[in-house]
């Protein structure tokens, strides 16, 4: 029976990056939660704050330039932001794991893949004997669809898709409860992407894991996610379940814009309906609703006041227009 309590809750997270020239407001009050054995899709374009969110959860923000200015992150009753570095290290890789976008640079070119998986295991289960360790490594390699005889090979001997499987193997070595996948298939061909996404779905079921799938591709979201959060200029402008997003047609204007920008292979539309303008400058964000300069339905209030989140059941939208929609408050 699935537990009702969420596995991870992020509340009002506020993160900035400071440099000599400017302050980048990366996250401006991000809140969401994810349950057990659930996949949350975190959607957004460049600079929206997706990777920053992931790094904040794991305590991996760049030391001098990244600062968490406010908010809470609660993982299974543990307040992550209050943990020491040593305590976080016990969680990273063991209870929460992360995989990054580019498999080319995620792997150490001078260690065999077997050694790299072993390293992940060793850090968290140093009690295992050498034999047990090897057995577990073989088990994991097979789990991601690579023959265990390849454990002695080096990353460069694997293709892009296989490398990403190795990265996944390392991340899953200690059977984490939460996997954060940051654009895991963006660098892969579409047929390989299908293979890898399928595999991730199977593993998620088998290991009873939750997953945060960070992506800009709404197609991947539709295929893999139970809940979706849309990130824009460091805020979650829309949150909902798969049904709320793909069956219900009411969306935040930005989300509508995203849907309108994607060429749909099943539609006959001649022209796409892109969002006007360019992405906001994170060092100089607009006042009021951060999307207002690009919104086709902007009103006066949008320029002055940043909207609160309006909910209807599982669906939440940060938009003044929704005040006039029944059921949203």
């Amino acid at each position, binding site marked *: 029976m699935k537990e009702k309590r969420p596995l991870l809750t992020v509340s009002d997270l506020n993160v900035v990056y400071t440099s000599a020239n400017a302050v980048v407001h990366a996250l401006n009050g991000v809140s969401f939660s994810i349950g057990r054995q659930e996949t949350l899709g975190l959607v957004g374009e460049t600079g929206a704050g997706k990777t920053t969110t992931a790094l904040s959860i794991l305590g991996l923000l760049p030391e001098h330039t990244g600062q968490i200015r406010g908010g809470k992150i609660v993982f299974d009753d543990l307040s992550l932001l209050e943990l020491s570095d040593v305590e976080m290290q016990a969680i990273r890789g063991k209870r929460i794991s992360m995989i990054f976008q580019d498999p080319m640079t995620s792997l150490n070119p001078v260690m065999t893949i077997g050694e790299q998986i072993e390293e992940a295991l060793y850090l968290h289960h140093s009690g295992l004997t050498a034999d047990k360790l090897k057995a577990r490594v073989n088990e994991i390699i097979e789990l991601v669809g690579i023959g265990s005889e390849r454990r002695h090979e080096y990353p460069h001997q694997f293709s892009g898709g296989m490398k990403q499987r190795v990265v996944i193997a390392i991340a899953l070595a200690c059977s984490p409860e939460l996997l954060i996948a940051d654009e895991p298939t963006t660098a892969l061909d*579409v047929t390989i992407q299908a293979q890898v996404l399928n595999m991730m779905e199977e593993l998620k079921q088998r290991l009873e894991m939750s997953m945060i799938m960070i992506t800009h591709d709404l197609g991947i979201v539709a295929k893999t996610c139970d809940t979706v959060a849309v990130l824009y200029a460091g805020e979650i402008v829309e949150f909902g379940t798969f049904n709320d997003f793909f069956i219900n047609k009411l969306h935040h204007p930005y989300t509508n814009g995203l849907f309108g920008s994607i060429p749909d292979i*099943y539609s006959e539309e001649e022209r796409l309906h892109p969002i006007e303008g*360019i992405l906001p400058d994170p060092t100089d964000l607009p006042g009021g609703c951060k999307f207002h300069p690009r919104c086709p339905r902007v009103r006066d209030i949008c320029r002055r006041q940043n909207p609160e989140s309006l909910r209807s059941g599982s669906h939440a939208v940060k938009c003044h227009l929704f005040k006039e929609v029944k059921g949203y408050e």
Partner: protein
Amino acid sequence: MSEVILETRGLKKYFELGKGATLHAVDDVSLVVKKGTTLGVVGESGCGKTTLGRTVLGLLPSTGGQILFRGQDTTKFTGRQQQALRKEMQIIFQDPYSSINPRHSIRRTIAEPIKVNRIIRDGKKREEYVLELMRSVGLEPRLASSYPHEIDGGRRQRVGIARALSVEPQFIVCDEPVSALDVSIQAQIINLFMDLQEERGLTYMFITHDLSVVRHISTEIAVMYLGQCIERAPAKELFKNPLHPYTKALISAIPVPSAMARKKRAEIIKGELTSPINPKPGCRFASRCPYVSEGCKKENLPLASMGNDHYVACVLHR
């Protein structure tokens, strides 16, 4: 019936890697592109689409076969004729960050092809022309004095487009021109491509790995796999009725952003690409094909017509 502006006949581009190893990047590709249309060239890594684009343009010397531009075989052109071709065929690159010179102003980048090909000699007229070009691609004229690092990726790509258009070419090879852009910007640029085509009667060879984009913008689509063109059909026909097993797998692998995503199960092809170096005869997809049979490994199949302008190279469709 519009005229054929570009045709390739058995086009080959091989790279000698030394020690007898030859990389068959483009292998016996025959395509026909009519004026005013868009030929989408689609495929995954290693299929040779990028090499095809550059070879067709003359940036890479071909190894065999013919490239007929408006009826003339460009593979036999002299240096001077090649130079003249630059005014007729142009290219737009994928990466807006590395395809324009970071040390040159926008104005200079766009003006260079005009200067070098001696299209407009008068400085003042040239300046007017550059600003007009910028307007036509959606760039504010005030950005003419800006430098690449001061503007975003979407605008930089517009600069690349303006540059390609400056010589008023008839045919443009677009090499993954929107792949490096964010989704919302991609849509703007795709619309721009389509508008420009309508306004100027341009012909595109649109190279991409993104099937949704290619369906939207192409009149006809050619599917490439390891250097060979394995299927060719009008865009909507290809998606409605894909014949080659690879094409089918490719299309079913696209994650669709709608509720339909959960309903259909993708046909997952197993395995990895085989090597394009010294390939064995026969269909190159054979090792991964769920319908493989003995006949597949014997010899290279040519594209066979299935009617409706639909061509496919597969034993299942003889």
